């Protein structure tokens, strides 16, 4: 905020002086204002520094194959982080994203392999599972007014149990599936680089969600609901409908995530990636989206997922034990949330 905006007409005299006193700017507060206005900026800076540092530590790090590997490794977390961002923007949290994704992937794979249902219909069934799970979470949050943390803690266990009951605990291998289901695991060359279609799909999802959040009334309402629910309601926004649609949208994204997961691992396993739940929250938080809702950027979450991927990859190339990767991610989370708290103090 510049002083021009706060200073009233010059005739106002002493009152102006008082306001200027309150709004006095220091270089630090100016930085804070900029970071506050562009929430994706801080993770972008962190990513840049991390890439440079790891590149200096090990010359293999910056090779194209390695960078391509990192993007493939973050495809899953990156996709789940889209769903997670939508929900965290409404001041919620979804502990069940990974479980929904696994359940959806099991349904897709089982229907196609055990029941011989064609690929496209199996994928639609997976989409229905994603939407249904989102509807259940959304219903419990909007109708019973339960905290999203509790709702999704419950549904996390429910979805895990359903997955194991449905699949009997067995993995479906990719070789048994129709090609369409494993298509997102394929790669295509651009020059010397092989690009994974799964990564492209994830990026397309980011573009689509970024567009919707930034350019449509719905996107603005998502921010408004997360920012101040009561204010949004009084401004005429149908808060419950917005919340419900957010959970449904998240479910749809998770179903596409299930498709990417099948391609990436070339299998559908009931035991895969339950830790993806927390990893997606990590990506969103490191990406600068506030857990208190209403502030953040979808691109930040992609950057957050990349930061985690870069740290894990870079540290392992530097020859450090995997435990140090976990340690580093833990420290990153604490720093990210502290920075967020500091940035939020910009509020007058």
């Amino acid at each position, binding site marked *: 905020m510049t002083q021009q*905006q*706060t200073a009233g007409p010059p005739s106002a005299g002493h*009152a102006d002086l008082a306001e200027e006193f309150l709004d006095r700017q220091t270089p630090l507060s100016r930085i804070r204002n900029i970071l*506050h206005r562009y929430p994706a900026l801080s993770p972008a800076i962190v990513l840049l520094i991390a890439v440079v540092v790891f590149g200096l530590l090990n010359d293999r790090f910056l090779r194209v194959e390695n960078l391509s590997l990192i993007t493939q490794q973050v495809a899953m977390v990156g996709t789940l982080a889209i769903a997670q961002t939508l929900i965290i923007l409404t001041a919620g949290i979804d502990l069940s994203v990974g479980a929904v994704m696994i359940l959806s992937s099991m349904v897709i794979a089982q229907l196609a392999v055990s029941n011989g249902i064609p690929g496209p219909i199996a994928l639609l069934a997976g989409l229905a599972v994603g939407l249904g799970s989102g509807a259940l979470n959304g219903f419990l949050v909007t109708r019973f007014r339960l905290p999203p943390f509790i709702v999704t803690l419950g549904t996390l266990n429910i979805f895990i149990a359903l997955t194991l009951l449905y699949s009997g605990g067995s993995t479906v291998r990719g070789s048994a599936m129709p090609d369409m289901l494993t298509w997102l695991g394929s790669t295509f060359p651009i020059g010397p680089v092989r690009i994974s279609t799964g990564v492209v799909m994830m990026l397309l999802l980011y573009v689509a969600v970024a567009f919707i959040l930034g350019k449509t009334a719905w996107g*603005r*309402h998502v*921010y408004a609901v997360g920012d*101040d629910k009561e204010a*949004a309601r009084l401004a005429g926004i149908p808060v419950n409908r917005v919340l419900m649609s957010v959970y449904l949208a998240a479910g749809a994204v998770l179903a596409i995530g299930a498709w990417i997961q099948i391609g990436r691992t070339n299998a559908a396993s009931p035991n895969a990636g339950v830790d993806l739940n927390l990893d997606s929250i990590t990506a969103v938080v490191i990406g600068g989206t506030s857990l208190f809702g209403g502030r953040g950027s979808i691109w930040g979450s992609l950057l957050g997922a990349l930061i985690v991927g870069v740290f894990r990859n870079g540290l392992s190339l530097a020859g450090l034990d995997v435990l140090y990767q976990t340690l580093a991610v833990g420290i990153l989370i604490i720093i990210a949330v502290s920075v967020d708290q500091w940035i939020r103090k910009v509020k007058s």
Partner: protein
Amino acid sequence: MTTTEFEAPRTETREPILKARNLVKTFGRVVGLDGVSLDLYPGEVLAVIGDNGAGKSTLIKCLTGAEVPDTGELFVSGQQVHFKRPQDARVHGIETVYQNLAVSPALDVASNLFLGREERLPGPLGSLFRILDTKGMRKKAKEELTRLGISTLQDVTVPVENLSGGQRQAVAVARAAAFGSKVVVLDEPTAALGVRESNQVLQLVRDLRDRGLPVILISHNMPHVFDVADRIHIQRLGKCAATITPQSHTMTDAVAIMTGAAKA
């Protein structure tokens, strides 16, 4: 002291824009409104005052659709209406600035002015892809603020959380004024403001009235009420104790009626 509702002679012949009859609202065993009637005429500022718990807020909520009265009738321009939610009142041209402002802190000024009724781009970009007309809304927001003479808000792209209390209030009032075609309701607009900012808001209220838009002003602040109001509706114990004018009564009289020390 004799007080009647007929004291403002200019209101006798005109049809009220907003008319409430015998509104009753109970919350469990608590009676919030006990048969309250109210008339709002074109081009006037009607203040509603009362002690805590007198039913001011409940009355306003019933008039603006935030609460549904148990019984009683509501007329807008002579037509009976039933408000179930704030949007219903809005459709009938009644805009409200709530005490807690109902602005979204992280969104910018223009987004807040159009919150809940965003405008989309013309053509398929708007209808098919549902893209917002951000530029257009910013332009209109600026025009509206200029029209209202709100000079302190130069940049409509500033997030509201970066504004002072008075500026936030100005945003909320501007939103109501921009879209309120019949009535603007202000709930305690000066409660959280300093002297200079209060004066700005009161000036805004006068400007609205001068443009022909009637205003209902809820306030605790007697000097403010007596400064801008044409008529004053005094709530006491869920009922309308009296409707007075600043000319007919002094502030002391008003407080006496409000607290029950004097009969209206």
